[in-house]
């Protein structure tokens, strides 16, 4: 006899004893929990040529493959998985980086002109410049004239920052130290966008800025970080002047690996004195 049946019988006995209507008794929580959602990948193709091949393929990519179909549409489970991941991604945008995390990171916390999340999302300029107070702080406290400035930006994924930055930052700093590349102290800038690096560079007067920024959350990963590098930005700098390494997270480029790779790349950019598309061209 299974547990559910035992519970039902006990409940039924109580109902009879106390002579209470059935619908009230049904509200009493049963010993067994309700349904539990499983997010595991399953082969959804009905009668495949080779199920093992599909299961294997599902392991080598986070893409939604091997999910099968109902007519031309998704099967119910895949549809619900999609809805679930979309909900989680939307929630990730709204979260702020936790105070405990910032304390543990132990680097200066600066702010942009964006005063709220909605201002940050709707007005790009607000996240591209430091607020007056942070400008003042940076002028007072930065050493100035070092080779590299590291910026951590929350961007659109605070979970990405919390998950990846500790390993990424330490690997990057270690790599730069080993190459004797001088660094300003890394800074964290709340509600900031990539272009804030141009503003920071104009104050600290470094050769290269690298921003580690939370990427907008996708469905497969809401925890991804990108690195944007620019050599001597000016007010005329454009997107194509920035070198980007994206998808740094545990399902993409591993944070420790990325840190080492980025420090090699920084050393190379400092020698070639150019970043972005022009840097790619130097490798012809």
């Amino acid at each position, binding site marked *: 006899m299974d547990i559910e049946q035992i519970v039902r019988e006990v409940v039924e006995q109580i109902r009879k004893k106390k002579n209470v209507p059935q619908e009230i008794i049904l509200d009493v929580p049963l010993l067994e929990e309700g349904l539990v959602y499983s997010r595991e990948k399953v082969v959804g*193709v009905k009668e495949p040529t*080779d199920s093992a091949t*599909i299961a294997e393929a599902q392991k080598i990519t986070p*893409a*939604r493959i091997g999910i099968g*179909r109902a007519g031309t549409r998704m099967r119910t489970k895949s549809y619900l998985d999609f809805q679930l991941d979309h909900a989680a991604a939307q929630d990730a945008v709204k979260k702020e980086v936790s105070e405990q995390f910032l304390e543990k990171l132990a680097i200066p916390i600066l702010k942009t002109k964006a005063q709220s999340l909605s201002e940050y999302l709707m007005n790009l300029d607000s996240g591209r410049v430091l607020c007056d107070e942070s400008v003042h702080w940076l002028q007072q406290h930065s050493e100035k004239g070092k080779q590299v400035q590291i910026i951590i930006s929350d961007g659109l994924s605070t979970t990405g920052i919390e998950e990846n930055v500790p390993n990424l930052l330490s690997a990057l700093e270690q790599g730069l130290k080993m190459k004797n590349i001088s660094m300003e102290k890394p800074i964290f800038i709340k509600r900031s966008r990539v272009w804030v690096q141009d503003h920071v560079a104009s104050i600290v007067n470094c050769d290269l800025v690298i921003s580690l920024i939370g990427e907008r959350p996708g469905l497969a990963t809401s925890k991804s970080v990108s690195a944007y590098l620019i050599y001597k930005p000016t007010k005329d700098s454009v997107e194509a002047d920035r070198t980007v390494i994206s998808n740094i997270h545990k399902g993409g480029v591993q944070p420790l690996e990325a840190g080492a790779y980025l420090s090699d790349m920084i050393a190379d950019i400092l020698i070639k004195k150019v970043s972005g598309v022009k840097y790619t061209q130097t490798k012809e």
Partner: protein
Amino acid sequence: MKLSGRIKDQHFQFSSVTELLAKASEEKSGDRMSKVAAESSLERVAAKWILSELTLKDIYENPVIPYEKDEVTRVIYDQINNHIYNEIAHWTVSYLREYILDHSTTSSALKRISRGLTSEMIAAVAKLMSSIDLVMASQKIRYQAHCNTTIGEPGRLAFRCQPNHPTDKSEGILASLKEGLSYGSGDAVIGINPNNDSVESVSRLLTISHEFIQKWGIPTQNCVLAHITTQLQALKKGAPMALMFQSLAGTEKANRDFGVNKELLDEASYYMMKMGTSSGPNVMYFETGQGSEVSLDADHGVDMQTLESRTYGYARHWNPFMVNNVSGFIGPETLFDGRQMIRADLEDLFMGKLNGLPMGIAPTYTNHMESDQNDQEIAGMLTALAGANFYMGVPGGDDVMLSYQDTSFHDDASLREMLGFRPLREFEIWLETMGIMENGRLTPKAGDLSIFN
């Protein structure tokens, strides 16, 4: 030229054609961010009305960015057919709208007058159109192009199979590619967005996609969507490339931000004809979308829709095989929600077609905008009804490399079946040989990537 008028006892004064165009636009957050949007609903209607009374000549003589100052303006004006323009210069925008919608105006007549229209005129007339207007007008215009397959034939709908992987792992890309092909997606192109934008990496992805196409005899073309300079280097080094990609915008300044200009596009197009693997003559693939100029701070105070139309006028110069609109890819600062995204998709499809392009649409949304799957599917159905040439095909609709949502392999198959469209001719025969499709419908084998074992 009259730039003022009175409605409901209120006087409205506009200072330029540029301001009028911006204020006549439907509401979009990007226009609000750049402070060019109408300040009230009544002002919006006033702008539409006054715009409707302008002549095409008024617009021709007042480009939103001067000819001398902007390469995009120059490319657009230099390809205008003066004979046709002179015939219609006295038309008002209002007349142009009715001419486009009139039963007696044929597809051929529309293609002809399009050669005399500047992109601003096309944006202007789109601003006087509702959703059904845009669909009806779009249905009339269709451009075909040929690379290895022919895109844009009546009754056919194509898809780009987009098998991205977050770290460009070959096995992962091939797995998604097989999945897509098994749903009948991939006749427009097999187009991979690389994570690593180096020449070596791009060449490797071109090689693996090319070899897969060869091995299975698939009538299609491959493309790796890296920066054009990187692709050019890969091409010159002998990487097998059938189609060359680049993102474009509607101002010289924004294109400079993208690291691209006319000279570079001419060079790329030249080398594709010389060294590319495809038969052509259409060997370029462009991506566009409302909002890139404003997000790059390169909009010159012009509204997003007008800039998008200019992007099409610019793109036309290189006779692309496909132009893909990805409005909704940027975020809520340009298109706030599903409603704005759907409107932009309909506008862009129409404007692209009237600018003479073989257009496709990618109804997309990001997770930080107010939009969901329902909005996206509505946009997909409407633009398919309006006669888009192609859509993206992304596994489960979720791009695991670019982190946004686009049309899925399932959506692709659904759009074909619900509207009775077939795959591109050459590709349909291949699907039938593979046992994936029969009489335009998926067979039980479809959706099974292990058929490629």
